[in-house]
């Protein structure tokens, strides 16, 4: 018989090995899935995981890796603080949208003036927009004990409606002949977040790397990171250690909302260019997978963000070259989170075969 036995303490080896195992299992089961869909499993897996990096068109795909990876990493870093403290902000997508709207609105207000101050102001507005949107579930939880999972998730749909109304109303391009969508900020030199479009470099990429470094220092070297981890593991011990749980909820919601808002701003004034009805593509939700795939560790999140961006791009290649349905790619990404959570049990438990073990 197969038995699970609790380890006296978490295994260091498995902490690092489980994400790798999850990726391998996803490749294997994804291969089976694609085979069932009538595709060659080896070719499909190669297309998704290797072609973006090593095929003859890789020069085109590699910049995409930065463009897709940056918002994922940025949002996931923010989420990882809350997730470690047991504060479940599921609505980063909404905070991403509101950050983009606020940041873009500031940029559009200055059009067509040229000044170096515009982009910093937009960045500030983007972060504030995300923070404000995240404060709604945060304050409701602190004040009335509502469930932040539900409230933050619901606010995503509110944010989507707000986005549509902005794209059709207040922020619509006056010179756009009535088409929905704002002016293109990527073509507004004082407002664009692009640094070098041909290599995929924009300020969001830079900010993502900075966020990784700051998160790493905060979590491993600072008492704030210690309090975050302590609150997630033992809330009562955290109160005993002097942590104010309400303040921690607001700070963690603020960090995740702020970084999600920044990601939205960098996207809207760079790769996306404009506020449009279909501006958001689910980075806020995928970032949840990225955060867990990276074990809520900043460096892990950086790697996981890269991997996730890879499956996005590889998935698009597979769609266009092999005619794979988009649902199959989403299934693959879902599988990754599923296997990650499933094999996670090995960190705290070991498998035993047989019923009797006397040591």
């Amino acid at each position, binding site marked *: 018989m197969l038995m699970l*036995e609790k380890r*006296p*303490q*978490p295994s260091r080896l498995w902490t690092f090995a489980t994400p790798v195992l999850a990726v391998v299992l996803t490749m294997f089961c994804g291969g089976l899935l694609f085979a069932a869909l009538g595709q060659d499993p080896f070719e499909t897996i190669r297309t998704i995981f290797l072609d973006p990096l090593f095929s003859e068109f890789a020069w085109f795909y590699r910049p995409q890796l930065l463009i897709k990876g940056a918002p994922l990493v940025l949002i996931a870093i923010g989420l990882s603080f809350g997730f470690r403290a047991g504060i479940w902000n599921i609505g980063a997508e909404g905070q991403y949208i509101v950050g983009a709207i606020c940041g873009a609105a500031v940029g559009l207000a200055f059009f067509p003036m040229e000044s170096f101050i515009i982009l910093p102001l937009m960045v500030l507005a983007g972060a504030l927009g995300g923070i404000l949107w995240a404060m709604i579930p945060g304050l409701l939880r602190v004040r009335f004990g509502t469930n932040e999972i539900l409230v933050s998730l619901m606010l995503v749909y509110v944010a989507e409606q707000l986005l549509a109304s902005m794209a059709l109303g207040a922020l619509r391009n006056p010179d756009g002949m009535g088409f929905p969508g704002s002016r293109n900020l990527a073509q507004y030199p004082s407002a664009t977040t692009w640094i070098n479009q041909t290599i995929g470099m924009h300020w969001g990429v830079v900010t993502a790397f900075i966020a990784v470094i700051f998160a790493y220092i905060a979590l491993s*070297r*600072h*008492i*704030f990171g*210690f309090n975050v*981890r*302590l609150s997630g*593991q*033992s809330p*009562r*011990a955290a*109160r*005993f*250690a*002097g942590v*104010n749980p309400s303040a921690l909820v607001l700070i963690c919601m603020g960090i995740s909302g702020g970084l999600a808002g920044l990601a939205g701003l960098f996207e809207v004034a760079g790769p996306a260019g404009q506020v449009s009805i279909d501006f958001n593509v689910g980075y806020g939700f995928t970032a949840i997978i990225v955060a867990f795939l990276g074990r809520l560790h900043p460096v892990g999140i950086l790697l996981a963000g890269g991997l996730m961006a890879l499956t996005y791009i590889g998935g698009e290649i597979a769609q266009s070259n092999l005619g794979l349905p988009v649902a199959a790619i989403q299934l693959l990404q879902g599988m990754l989170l599923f296997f990650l959570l499933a094999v996670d049990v090995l960190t705290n438990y070991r498998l*035993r075969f047989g019923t*009797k*073990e*006397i*040591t």
Partner: protein
Amino acid sequence: MTEPLLRLNGLTKAYPGVVANKDVSFEIGRGEVHALLGENGAGKSTLVKTIYGLVKPDSGTMMLEGKSFQPPEPRAARAAGVAMVFQHFSLFDAMNVAENIALGMENPPPQAEIAAQVRAVSDQYGLPLDPDRIVGELSAGERQRVEIIRCLLQDPKLLIMDEPTSVLTPQEVAILFETLRQLSSEGTAILYISHKLEEIRALCDNATVLRLGEVVGTCDPRATSARDMAELMVGSILHVPEKADKPAGDVVLSLSELSAPAPHRFGTPLRAINLEVRKGEVLGIGGVAGNGQDELVAALSGEMKTAKAMVAYKGESIGHLHPNARRKIGLLAAPEERMGHAAAPDMSLTENAILTAATREGFTTKGFLHWGKARHFAEGVIAAFDVRTPGPQNAARSLSGGNLQKFVIGREIMQAPEVLVVNQPTWGVDASAAAAIRQALLDLAAKGTAVIVISQDLDELMEISDRFAALNEGRLSNPRSAKGLTVDEIGLMLGGAHDMEVAHVDA
């Protein structure tokens, strides 16, 4: 000689890494009160869980009334006439007594019928209990009565009681014993688990002593001294803490009219507590669990804030200060629950050192942690308090209860507090570790620290306290000198027998 009621033969049960029971054999006759003695971790719980069908033995047999007895689950054990009162009650606070009893039944009769049965049994055995009362409002002793009556309704042949007196006042203990003697005279056998030797000497006909899972001896408790039994149990000579006489110092901590509402529905409000604690004294606070101990510790540690003037430290009002501000000025606390309150189970001992010692020991500069300092401090605690662990990098949950308790108490003592509040410092700790902890607390007091020890273990409090006070329903009695207090006086301070006297008249 007639066939015994229950015969255990060579029971062995091993868990990964530890043998809980090894070749355990003994017999219990009809109507016999049989004591099962042993330290924490000696295998008592595993053994009774085997009898009650919760644990399946690896080898060995049991015979009940001459027939093979291998209950696959507690239901089968109950059907065969074995009932058990657990140390930790399995009652629902929000339901009334009769509903709780109905929940444990296979085919519960209507509520009114259960209520009538409860009244009948409680009259018969002198255990007063109103079936309509909500369990959340009952005292620990009354809750235990619910569990006992629940068992008695099954008309058991064997009643297992796991540490039944740990939550009772001395008067309640006396009445419980009378009930048990009555049951025994009616032919019900009782398997009585305890490590309180005087109780066993007063109640039991036979005793089996377990150590590290093995039977190390049997004795007639009425003819054996408590000391001999203790040494049989521990396997070595016991070291009794020494207390030095010293003059009383200045008042360091005073509580004036400390009141606080219950923090949650089944908590206890604190009611107008007045108290002064002096430098170098050990103040013992006794009382049955759930009478405000947790709340008092929270009000002292700063986890629960109160009006500013209610708590004063060296003349300064500190009722509004948060835990770290209190630590900074020298007021430290160690709560009862080790796992998840005093320590974070999944964190390393170094991290658990940071948990309370960061402020006082200077582990941070502008919030940045000095891991080296914290590790060094944790190593110091481990060495000074003989904590058995490979090193400070190990997770707190990998330590046994006693070792973690030594670490938690040691962590506070090593910070050289001016006032130390400890709640149940030796709960679930083996005898030698308990003695070491008590000695450490006395040594700390000898150096001038005021120590407040909150405990349910009256023997412990009498051993180390200079003054003694009792906590009852959130009220604190006037502290009295611990010297010369009798068990009866303590019992009265603890709130007497919780309605028990009335029952005597009725019964």
